[in-house]
């Protein structure tokens, strides 16, 4: 094959169409579904403390998800979205980072946030949109955010955070922070134009970013294979952008952890952005507004239940002798009690003062917003019974 100078291309003289079969990307798995180490696999170093912290976080998230789905059914919160089945992906990857690294999530990464240290009270305050919520109760439940923990506030529009991660990482690189940005998104969101922009720009600018695609098989009701994409998932796209890429078993916390650790090294030390595709399954409905029986079978769900990432990790921990069933149960019960207590307490905290309604639109409220607030307050004073959540405190000094 001859070389074309300008493009450094090999030249062929027979037309041959290339398709997905030219690039098969395998999946890294270290921990088999039964909790044993796969033949030939070598686990990444992980001390007991870290392993238990990961497991702890997994347990906590399971409880949180379960309780809040129940709370939504009871009408105590308006909406909830669980990460059931995907805990290893977000927690295992977050565990491979340092606290200074920025996390930009989609909305199903409560595990990463909990791992960072977001307290159960902080979760509850957001979920109940009360005045202690860092987001001031302005967004729907599960739209967490915390500057102190370098966890960017979640927002509903899909994929917008992906090019933002490229930009954020560019700033980190220029400021020589030694940190990177991890950006999570679903395989559905990867269909958005913003995904394309983000990965291409990251590859061009060589930013310290890790793009973590949670491929959980569905975007609400839309199955990934054949309806979201026709190719071999998301990973080949990274290759096409000239970006280092790896696919992992998203239910294997060790595979996730190892890939993210190595990706972080590439990102921070060599300014090589990395795409990780974590293969997993959304065990619950998309959110409390969704009922998956309308679009998938029980059998399929059961097949995935057998791959449960938490069960798998717990088996390994037990085999390791780092935890036993009783301890695990005791931890579980304690956490559950803490969740219930926090829930009860957050629920009684009032919504933010009405004055907050015009704050943060700009850095300081311009005159027209102040006028609009005054008019609104005058109106509320006239009809206090129509606006019970704010009327009683409207002129109180408790702003």
């Amino acid at each position, binding site marked *: 094959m001859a070389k074309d100078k300008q493009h450094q291309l090999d030249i062929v003289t027979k037309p041959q169409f290339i398709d997905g079969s030219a690039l098969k990307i395998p999946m890294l798995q270290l921990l088999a579904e039964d909790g044993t180490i796969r033949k030939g696999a070598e686990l990444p170093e992980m001390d007991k403390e870290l392993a238990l912290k990961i497991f702890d976080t997994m347990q906590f998230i399971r409880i949180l998800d379960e309780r809040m789905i129940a709370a939504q059914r009871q009408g105590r919160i*308006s*909406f909830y979205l669980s990460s059931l089945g995907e805990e290893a992906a977000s927690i295992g990857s977050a565990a491979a980072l340092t606290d200074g690294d920025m996390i930009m999530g989609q909305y199903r990464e409560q595990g990463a946030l909990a791992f960072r240290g977001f307290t159960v009270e902080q979760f509850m305050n957001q979920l109940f*949109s*009360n005045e202690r919520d860092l987001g*001031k*109760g*302005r*967004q*729907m439940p599960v*739209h967490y955010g915390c500057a102190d923990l370098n966890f960017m506030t979640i*927002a*509903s*529009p*899909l994929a917008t955070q992906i090019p933002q991660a490229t930009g954020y990482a560019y700033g980190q690189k220029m400021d020589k922070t030694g940190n990177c940005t991890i950006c999570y998104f679903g395989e*559905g*969101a990867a*269909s*958005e*134009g*913003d995904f394309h922009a983000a990965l291409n720009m990251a590859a061009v600018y060589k930013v310290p970013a890790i793009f973590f695609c949670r491929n959980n098989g569905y*975007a*609400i*009701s*839309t199955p990934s294979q054949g*309806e*979201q*994409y026709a190719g071999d998932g998301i990973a080949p796209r990274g290759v096409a952008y000239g970006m280092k890429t790896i696919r992992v078993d998203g239910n294997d916390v060790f595979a996730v952890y190892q890939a993210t650790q190595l990706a972080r090294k590439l990102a921070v030390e060599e300014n090589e952005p990395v795409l990780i595709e974590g293969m997993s399954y959304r065990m619950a409905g998309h959110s409390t*507004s*969704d009922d998956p029986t*309308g*679009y998938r079978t029980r059998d399929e769900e059961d097949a995935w239940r057998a791959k449960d990432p938490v069960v798998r990790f717990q088996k390994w921990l037990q085999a390791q002798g780092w935890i036993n069933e009783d301890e695990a149960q005791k931890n579980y019960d304690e956490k559950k009690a803490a969740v219930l207590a926090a829930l009860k307490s957050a629920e009684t905290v009032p*919504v*933010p003062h*009405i004055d*907050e*309604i*015009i704050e943060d*639109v700009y850095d300081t409220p311009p005159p*027209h*917003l102040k006028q*609009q*607030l005054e008019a*609104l307050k005058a*109106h*509320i004073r*006239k*009809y206090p019974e*129509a*606006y019970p*959540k*704010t009327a009683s405190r409207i002129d109180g000094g408790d702003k």
Partner: protein
Amino acid sequence: MAKMNLLQAINNALDIAMAKHDNVYSFGEDTGAFGGVFRATSGLTEKYGRHRNFNTPLVEQGILGFANGLASQGSYAVAEIQFGDYIFPAFDQIVNESAKFRYRSGNEFNVGGLTIRTPYGGGIAGGHYHSQSPEAYFAHTPGLKIVMPRNPYMAKGLLLSAIFDKNPVLFMEPKRLYRASVGEVPEEEYTLELGKADLVKEGKDITVLAWGAQVEMAEKAAEMAAKDGIDCEVIDLVSLLPWDVDTVAESVRKTGRLIITQEAPITGGFASEVAATIQDQCFLYLESPIARVCGLDTPYPLSHEKEYFVDHLKVYEAIKASMTY
């Protein structure tokens, strides 16, 4: 006649349109066999097959790009955007493409077969991104038609008109009323003219104008005002582009007063367009300033939704203020 809620009326209109012409296609995120997150397209795949009602990948700019292309080919493309809040990635395809397709080509090509359906509006605990009323963002765009029904009867007739109209139509569905609004709807095909306002209630003292879900607030406020002896004329604008200036102007020439209410933030909203036009056309008839009763100039806040919402009380207060100006 049958009792239908607004969703059923829309589903019924889609059904009739797809039965009528083989080349009517319905698609969007989750709109396939599952029937859409609100179920507006349910049953259509079963009836017309998965090539006529189908899921799209998750990419609004692609949905509209695809829809523009399909319409330019001569088909009727009915694209659903899951929430009005997520229509912005498709803004370029709508504003620079759909709207200008016919003009720029000198009528060599057109996307007249395009209809964009999207639920809009607040009051459902949706926070920033499931509550917006983005109609004004599109109303500055010659070439588009914009229609917003207020009840099942209008929804069906208007949607059937929109689908077969020879121009691209943005059809915005008040999601707060999807199940809440129920009414008698003829089962057969019928159409309602686009571009015509609808007189909801005659009155002589003041005109109250609204569109979509907000008409309900105008009606409730008018009822309250009636108890004070104020006789409101309530008009549903129905179409925002082109809009029915004459009907509104005629009413204001009669009443001398105008309240316009919209869910969206006040600044740059469509109420401003109506106010600007009517003060010009009815200058000598106005007895008080035209008042706009609208959302605050902030994003839509979840925990203060009730306060933010432009409810009937706010409209009622504006009516009283206008009457005593």
